[in-house]
């Protein structure tokens, strides 16, 4: 959830401040959060 919100917030900040080259940051976070979410689910099911 937090990675999802931060991804959208970074995209909104990028548009709001007019720094379009920084759109790479939410793009990278969206890709990384997919793996992170799967690792979290695996950890949650086995260890928590």
């Amino acid at each position, binding site marked *: *959830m937090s990675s999802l919100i931060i*991804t*959208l917030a970074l995209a*909104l900040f990028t*548009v709001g401040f007019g720094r379009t080259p920084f759109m790479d940051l939410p793009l990278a976070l*969206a890709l990384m959060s997919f793996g992170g*979410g799967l690792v979290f689910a695996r950890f*949650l099911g086995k260890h928590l």
Partner: protein
Amino acid sequence: MTVGIAVEDTSLLLVVLLCWLGVLGMWRMKEPMQALHYLSLPAVAGAILIVPAVLISQGVGQAFWKVLLIALILIASNSVVTHATARAFRARELGHWEPLDGDPIEMVHEEKQT
């Protein structure tokens, strides 16, 4: 104020509101299965609404294609991650994730009568 700016502002406002609604929904729901449903608000509707806002403000350029890619990644990955998390919750609660005889149909616990 032109129509384009009004649509852009409305879309961005809706994205922010949907993010807040998703966070409040996850916070208020007691059961993890119920809370997981609120992930879809920012992941799907928020990600879709940010695309026309960037299209109007920046035009068809690098930023638009990147936001479109972000929206597609969020929509595709949200369902997979939500399903994996729900399965992990179920496996933690029941010891297995497959539906077996005698399992509760819904993973919602009854509130204790006081």
